């Protein structure tokens, strides 16, 4: 064999070993998800869901975002905050992932599957000690019903790695599906197709379908127009996918699906216009220039892809400046 052939075969070996390692890891990975980033245990969520969102709690808690903004109000997703309040769980320690599915109808709550490692005995004791929940057994699983709210919420301690939390009827439905070995969410082909396209490993992700997006505004005020005088109409979205990461900067990828390529182009133009307007504002606010250059808008057939990479310094600059603490000196006594 000539030297050059030897070099060629050595290079090919590196490539083949790399690809084989990749394929092997993909097959042998015990935690590989069932559909895209969605774990198999979460497929018991209802089939009529209009949106599904996932949240990698470990990554979130380890991110600079959490570190910076953990004290801010509304920082925690509702499902996580409620779970923590009712069960005494330590999300950063106990939770790996939360998947929420819901219909998006105003006034309704989604049902959540929390994955992690749980001490069911301690958890049950904590809930019972709280005294606000009534424990029952359903399909061999302990379910606690919190009855003090107007809408009854329940938590099911499924096993050491799975909890189901949400409205009582939906929790029991999910448990029934689990017992029957069904995966209702998987039958929602439209949502599953979008979930499948999501790259696993994102800190958070969300997919929504047409009916969820029907309530979005169909127009926005035109720049410079007086109230009610002019507006830009927005093409209707038929689907939405959001994925994001928080380390080492805030990265967002939003994919909006329009009816056709022309509608997607219109929508992309609107987004580009907004980005351009932000650039024009840069004379007054230099941080907006950074923000505008951090966003890219592309179209792909009937889809509009918006990706943003925002460094934390830019986020800090965009934060409203808090008034400095007033030094509390006692008022001089009146003479």
């Amino acid at each position, binding site marked *: 064999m000539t030297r050059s052939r030897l070099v*060629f075969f050595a290079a090919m070996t590196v490539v083949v070993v790399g690809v084989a390692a*990749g394929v092997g890891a993909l097959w042998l990975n015990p935690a590989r998800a069932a559909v895209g980033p969605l774990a198999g245990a979460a497929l018991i969520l209802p089939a009529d869901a209009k949106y599904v969102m996932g949240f990698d709690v470990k990554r979130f808690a380890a991110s600079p975002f959490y570190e910076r903004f953990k004290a801010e109000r509304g920082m925690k997703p509702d499902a996580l905050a409620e779970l923590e309040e009712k069960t005494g769980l330590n999300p950063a320690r106990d939770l790996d992932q939360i998947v929420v599915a819901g219909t998006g109808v105003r006034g309704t709550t989604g049902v959540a599957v929390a994955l992690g490692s749980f001490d069911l005995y301690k958890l049950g004791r904590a809930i019972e000690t709280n005294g606000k929940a009534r424990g029952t057994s359903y399909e061999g699983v302990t379910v606690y019903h919190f009855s003090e709210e107007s809408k009854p919420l329940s938590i099911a301690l499924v096993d050491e790695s799975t909890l189901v939390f949400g409205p009582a009827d939906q929790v029991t439905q999910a448990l029934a599906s689990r017992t029957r070995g069904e995966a209702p969410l998987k039958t929602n082909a439209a949502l599953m197709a979008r979930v499948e396209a999501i790259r696993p490993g994102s800190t958070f992700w969300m997919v929504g379908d047409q009916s969820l997006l029907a309530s979005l505004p169909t127009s926005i005020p035109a720049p410079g127009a007086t109230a009610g005088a002019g507006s830009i109409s927005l093409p209707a979205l038929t689907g939405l996918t959001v994925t994001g990461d928080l*380390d080492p900067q805030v990265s967002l990828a939003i994919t909006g699906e329009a009816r056709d390529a022309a509608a997607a182009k219109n929508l992309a133009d609107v987004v580009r216009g907004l980005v351009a307007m932000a650039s024009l504002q840069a004379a007054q606010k230099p941080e907006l220039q950074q923000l505008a250059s951090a966003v890219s808008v592309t179209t*792909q057939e009937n889809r509009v892809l918006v990706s943003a990479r925002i460094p934390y310094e830019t986020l800090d600059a965009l934060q409203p400046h808090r008034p400095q603490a007033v030094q509390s000196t006692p008022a001089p006594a009146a003479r």
Partner: protein
Amino acid sequence: MRDTTRPLPFATAARGVFDLTLDGMVFSRRSLLMGLLVAAPMAFAVLYRVLAATRGQPPLGPTDLYALMVAVYWIRNVLPLAALFYATSLVADEVEGKTLTYLLTRPLTRASIFAGKFAAYVATTFTLALPAAVLTFFILMTAPTAPPLAAALADLPRDLGVMLLTLVAYGALFGLLGVLLKRPVIPGLVFLYGWELLANVPGYLPRFTLTAWLRSLVPYRPAEDGLAGLFQQVLPAGQGLAVLIFVSIAFVAAAVWIFSSREYVLDQ
């Protein structure tokens, strides 16, 4: 007994030319320079890991850095440049070195000579580029802040495929320029850094560039300033694959046809 009045069979002849050309290509100053350029992301990746370990997380995540390397460094810049310097010289070097006569007087068809040389070009650039991509991927994706390796690994074969297609498509085009023009490097550079910028304008013009089709095959969309950031389009991937394969075959066929029919008069 071989009939010596007829040329060698295509495959045998092409293989002979491939062996001869590969030796000359792999161990050359050009390969040393191109090897350094193509493998530079590996050094960046190591530096990134060292910086992340010693000075804390750099502002760019490992996934973003890898995306930048694949979409901007390799596919947009360095691989087309490597194709330009290798493929334009497939025949031009033989003409310049006045050694083409030795090849043309052998019992080989011109088509087999070009095919052997083109295969050697693909093998050489493959040898330089793809292992660098594999190693860069593993160096970056095993960083603590990277997504799970198993999740990212599905992207690797696709990225390698697109890089290979970049080398083949640009190689075919520049191979054609090499047999068509006496000095093909300047027009090649004008194509790369002039014509290919059309990929960033709105409308149908990006479809007339190779880079717009190639970048549509990878999912990485690094945020860009200027026209690219404002009007970047992602073309349909299936169509892109078909277009790139078609133009590669068409350019190679055209190059073979021109090389087979052209009279080469070497300066004495």
